[in-house]
């Protein structure tokens, strides 16, 4: 049974069913904690409205953070890398062909010289 579910990874092993069991236990603990929460919470009332320093809540469509705003910090920190890597993706078929031919030539040199 154990051999059926345990994957030998060379240096170790992986048993997904043990992981699922652990996740189930974690889920039960989470549910217990949830059940200990406040019972006087009333959804759909003023209790559930966000408090924005007294300002009115904007339209729902305006509060969603769009994809273009995500990971701005990462992209800004990696600006040097991205400015060079993105510029290689020209969209020009001539460049695509040149890359293919260039890599082929490089492979040829490596294989013929090294073996």
């Amino acid at each position, binding site marked *: 049974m154990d*051999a*059926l*579910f*345990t*994957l*030998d*990874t*060379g*240096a*170790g092993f*992986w048993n*997904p*069913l043990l*992981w*699922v069991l652990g*996740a189930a236990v974690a889920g039960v603990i989470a549910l217990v904690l949830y059940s200990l929460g406040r019972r006087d919470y009333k959804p759909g009332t003023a209790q559930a409205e966000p408090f924005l320093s007294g300002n009115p809540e904007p*339209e*729902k*469509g305006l*509060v*969603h*953070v*769009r*994809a*273009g705003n*995500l*990971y701005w910090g*990462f*992209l800004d920190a*990696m600006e040097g*890398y*991205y400015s060079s*890597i*993105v510029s*290689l*993706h020209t*969209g020009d*078929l001539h*460049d*695509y*062909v040149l*890359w*293919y031919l260039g*890599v*082929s030539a490089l*492979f*040829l040199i*490596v*294989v*013929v010289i*090294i*073996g």
Partner: protein
Amino acid sequence: MITSFIVENSPALMVIVPFIAAFVAPLTGRVAPAVRAWIVGGAMAITSAITLLLASDVYAHGTRLYVFGAQAATQTIAPDSGGIPVRIMFTVDPMSALMLVITAVLAFAVVLYSLTSERDHTGLGSYYTLFLLMVTGILGMVSTGDIFNFFVFLEILSIASAGLIAFRIDGGIAVEAAIKYFVLSTLGALAVLIAIGIYYGQYNALNMALIAQRMQYTLLDQVALVLIVAALAMKCGAVPMHFWTPDAYSMAPSSITALLVVASQASLYGLFRAVFTLYNVTLNAACIGWLLIVLGVLSMVVGVTMAIPQKNVKRLMAYHAISQTGYMLLGVGVGLAVLGNQSFLSAFGYVAMEGGIFHIINHAMYKGLLFLTAGAIFFRIGTYDLNRMGGLGHSMKWTMVFFIIGALAIAGIPPFNGYASKLMIYESVFAFNPILSVIAMVVSILTLASFVKVFHSIFMGPVLPEYKDVKEVPRPMLIGMGILALVVIAFGLFPSIVVDTLVAPAAHALADQGMYIATVIGGGA
């Protein structure tokens, strides 16, 4: 009687059925679109059943030979041929069988999905003809034991794929993507054809086993090797020859993009087949192995970092497809690099190869699933632009669940299938070179970060006013996605069964050139 006939002739039937259906489909479409749908769905169901039957037979009884035009299907060498296998033959070993399983499952799921997702489009006669020709090309490529035949199927696949990439036209942008794909495919096919000419000129043979048996690894063989490796690496989207991939993947209809993933993997199969079966230990395994490793690392890193800033969900997924191909190249490249060293091969080489090959089947399933979810979203809101999406989790709950399954699998989160194959790659590659393993892990983290962004952008947040009337996609599309999601979960929960029954035999068959030659030249397993 009929069952034994089907099993006996399954290698031929699995390409004949979709090939004939490809030309029957447009004719029946003139009678009624519903008849065409039944013909296409039925043909694909029959093809998948025959293909799975053949694969199970190979795993149970060993490599299957099928010689076209011979008195017996296993008569590889005709009495009057001077000991040379002259006929076209299919050689279906466990590695080929694994690719057949991938194609059968994914193509069936995709056709179920397509019958609904494409129903309102025009030109469906051509669509299904090209779709079935793609399936024919893939099945032929991964089954043939004749290298010229491989080229023919590669061309069938490329032409059909180019037609389908251009299918939506989209103001000419899809046509431009198709032209890029077609020009590069033609150049690659030309390189493969020149390599075939070199083999034929030197060894008077087109049969892969006979070429392998006679392989001398001369300078011309080295040139042929480079031509094949570069062409097929480009076709599978390896960096820095990947530029066509985001263009083509993003412009093709989503169901076709899912099948393009398998098409790219068929090229990867061809690359592995050439290196391991044609050359094996005659070449400098460390040199070629490291070439594959470098391609793999470049693909992983450039693919995932280029995915992060993308705004088009399919373009983003296309870059991730490139990145995941890197894992396969890395795993199998490590296996190749230590091919001549039996102790290294036993210690970690086979596990690395198994990890890489396991990742092929896993990637086909979860990436196919992710592309289908992208198509489902486009089906309802008509855009792939992430900046224009949001809040769809309220109305497309099943699509969201399928997306989560695919996203967690591609990011290597347990207990999904991507984790199992990545773990095998991490551990075995660590024994070979720890830095490569660390890079692979970092790429997985970035993959997760990228899909967190996609999940948030598409499904999270309040219901947007413009999408307040959006509904879940029709049931056949959900069933298509559900089939792939089930495979992703099952392969994740029971990885040892998949590795022991499908992957390990494939890895050993790929590495064991002697057995391949003996099976073909000896006339059967």
